[in-house]
């Protein structure tokens, strides 16, 4: 089509949708993130109560104890909407695939100290079940959360967790020489070994939590806040003495992912805490309850991987997490003494 | 009566190759051109073979790439290495 733009101005009559203009002004063209996210969720005039929980409306801010005047203050710093999310994750997956293919083609796993390789399988592979539960928890947040801003990001995080569980599975197939044996052993450990039971109990206890914001804190802040720093920090460093580099190549993306996800979770916690003292008290309560559980649950795993140094690594992870919460103004600094 | 299965494919470079491969591998299949897409019908069962499509495209084609070209289908689906089958149980 050939349009003579010189002859005639085709002037837009408005720059964006009214609900976006009410938030950001009528003269400002909106970003794709804003148009895809703000005020998309139905808010009022629901026709029927859910038959599975008639005490609530279909979308109901009362499904959590956290109270917000406006639920659209949880801006995702990554500005993910579906397209930008998928394009970002396709790239992340590609870098993992490249790393695994590199290791696989050159059979680099053979160069790793066998004892460390087995220990690596023992701590990494059961974590895919933790990721699977994290996936379910994110689905609950996407389901019962309030406002598209936080629920869409939770849905993407849920997809991430399934992806991570599958990436760990792929590493498991490689460690099992192309068979499921390593994954099956790890599942048996997850279900039966003493070292994993406190964590499995914690994970299952999370699966019956119905306050979605509590789950957000319990899973995405607290449990992830212990497991990821340990897995990508102290555990990973312990492999260096045992020629563990090929394994580190394959798990390197976990650290990148956690840093990326934390940009979002930081923004969420900061905004919820900034809303009111009442929110800060609730966030603090949840944080204390679940971090006590998480610390206890990861301690045996720390000991399994790091021996006598395990406790110090777990303590350090806990301290860093607490500092992070204080920096976000979600915890009082005086609680540092604990 | 053998119920027909069908698949509608976008009219793109990959899409044309898929349709050609289906027609070559399923002698009873017929194709119906529609605006911007092609609908292929076949009585009872239809198979899309990865090697047939790969040969036509001159590159390795993964049956899961069907997700980039399909518009609609009718029938049950069985996906495995090397092929995608649409059938009625």
């Amino acid at each position: 089509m050939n349009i003579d733009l010189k002859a005639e101005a085709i002037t837009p009559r408005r720059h964006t949708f009214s609900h976006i203009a009410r938030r950001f002004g009528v003269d400002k063209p909106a970003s794709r993130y804003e148009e895809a996210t703000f005020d998309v969720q139905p808010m009022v005039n629901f026709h029927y109560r859910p038959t599975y929980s008639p005490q609530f409306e279909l979308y109901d801010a009362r499904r959590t104890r956290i109270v917000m005047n406006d639920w659209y203050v949880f801006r995702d710093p990554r500005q993910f909407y579906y397209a930008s999310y998928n394009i970002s994750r396709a790239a992340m997956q590609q870098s993992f695939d490249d790393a695994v293919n590199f290791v696989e083609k050159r059979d680099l796993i053979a160069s790793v100290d066998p004892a460390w390789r087995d220990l690596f399988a023992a701590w990494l592979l059961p974590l895919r079940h933790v990721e699977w539960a994290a996936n379910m928890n994110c689905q609950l947040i996407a389901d019962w959360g309030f406002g598209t801003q936080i629920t869409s990001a939770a849905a993407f995080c849920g997809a991430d967790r399934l992806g991570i569980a599958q990436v760990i599975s792929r590493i498991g197939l490689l460690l099992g020489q192309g068979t499921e044996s390593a994954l099956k052993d790890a599942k048996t450990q997850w279900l039966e070994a003493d070292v994993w039971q406190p964590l499995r109990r914690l994970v299952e206890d999370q699966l019956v939590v119905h306050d979605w914001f509590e789950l957000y804190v319990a899973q995405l802040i607290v449990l992830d806040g212990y497991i990821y720093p340990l897995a990508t920090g102290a555990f990973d460093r312990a492999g260096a003495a045992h020629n563990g580099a090929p394994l580190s190549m394959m798990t390197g993306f976990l650290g990148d992912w956690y840093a990326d996800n934390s940009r979002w979770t930081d923004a969420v916690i900061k905004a919820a805490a900034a809303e009111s003292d009442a929110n800060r008290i609730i966030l603090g309560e949840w944080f204390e309850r679940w971090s006590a559980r998480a610390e206890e649950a990861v301690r045996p795993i720390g000991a399994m991987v790091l021996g006598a140094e395990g406790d110090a690594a777990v303590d350090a992870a806990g301290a860093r997490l607490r500092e992070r919460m204080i920096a976000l103004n979600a915890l009082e600094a005086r609680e540092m003494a604990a | 009566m053998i119920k027909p299965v069908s698949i509608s494919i976008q009219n793109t470079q990959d899409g044309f190759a898929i349709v050609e491969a289906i027609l070559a591998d399923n002698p009873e299949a017929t194709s119906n051109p529609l605006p911007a897409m092609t609908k292929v019908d076949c009585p009872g069962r239809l198979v899309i073979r990865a090697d047939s499509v790969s040969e036509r495209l001159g590159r390795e084609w993964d049956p899961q790439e069907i997700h980039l070209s399909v518009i609609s289908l009718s029938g049950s689906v069985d996906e495995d290495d090397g092929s995608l089958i649409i059938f009625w149980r």
Partner: protein
Amino acid sequence: MTPRKMSLKQKYGAYTRGLDWKPTYQREDDVFPFAKYEGIKIHDWDAWEDPFKLTMDAYWKFQAEKERKLYAVIDSMAQNNGQLGITDARYLNAVKLFIQGVTPLEYQAHRHFAHLARHLPGAGLRVAAQMQSIDELRHCQTQIHTISHYNKYFDGIHDFTHMHDRLWYLSVPKSFFDDATSAGPFEFLTSISFAFEYVLTNLLFVPFMSGAAYNGDMATVTFGFSAQSDESRHMTLGLEAVRFLLEQDEANVPIVQGWIDKWFWRGYRLLSLVGMMMDYMLPKKVMSWGEAWETYYEQAGGALFADLARYGIREPKYADVAKAEKGHMTHQAWGIFYNYTHAAAMHTWDIDEAHMAWLREKYPDTFAQHYEPRYRKWREQAEEGKRFYNNGLPQLCQVCQIPMAFTEVGDPNTISFRVSEHGGDRFHTCSDGCKDIFDHEPEKYAQAWLPVHQIFQGACGGATLPEVLDWYHINQGADNMDYAGSPEEEQWNRWMEGRRPVVPVAAE
């Protein structure tokens, strides 16, 4: 040892259900508290066979590629003033109906498939549900981004989420989806994945997307085609899920049959908006509603229900009524909008001679006899300066929420309505299909947020029409009323000056 290569099926099993375990520290019934209350019996979740074996790596890769292509088209549409390529500005009313009525449903589907992804006890189904959940978010967001461009130039689009929660005709799609998401997980699967996605989706998407293609709206065609590639996954999920329920226990058959009957009728009533769009709102017509119903329901549905007969499933109840009504439904629906266009965020117009000739040809048994005289009378009134607007508020069906304008089967001069009693109150429905649905769950449908009742109760901004329209956020004189005389008409004619002949609009 030579590594044994696992097949795609084995690998997919390891990547999905291999992740799952049976909880022992918590009771399974507490982890999945909603799995039993509908009465569906599942004995073996492992019997579920995943039709498509998509893992997240492949999902991200393919979806990213699709999005790159789609957004290239959306960008190009904005850069090249793609809105000038449509056949006529009246076409945009189909797009308005879509973003007001359908896009919010995509969003609701996203949220509720997340509910299934959390609450179905079977790991295989949970994985399929969560992919569908983010797919539906994709559809919602790509529709917003595509139509965002039209919003810059055309009316009625600007406040679609606000309107979806309030407008009288949008309570039809909203209550439809609220009905599904307030039901248990298995009814939701049957309603949306099977009855809607598998049985009726072609009647929603094909008319909208072909309508867009015929009318020069390439951006909508592109998002439609791109969404359809996800839909084929969703349809397959719907078919296999229903088959799974039927195979698991014979006691499930009558429950599922009841849901199929209900959701067929619910979906069919919802599609009256789509049928109206096809027969009345496309300047260049694709096919009539009657033809579409024959192709996509009567023929395709026939093969499907023949296949399900082995489980004891029969065709949906009242499919015969839908067949018998197909020559009437869309004309009656258009009549409602013509009479209430002052309260709608879209335009209507006089049906010109060429359009009437098309309708006579497509509906030889009904149009000339029952509807053409009506349109001619409306035209006369408009020409005399007495364009007919219905200033009363219509009674709405308690279930489908469409104003009571549909007629008795075989008697197009008598409005069809039914009455049920519940809790000492009388509830009105538009048909046997809707009455059955009400009578089966009266406590549910008695809760309905009926827009007209709400206006009477003073819950909608005030007692006068302008107050209610303000509350709807309808820009009066732009979003509503006839196309003739609208700012959109003026704009379009200005754009088309010297470009191509303006399609005449007969009224006024």
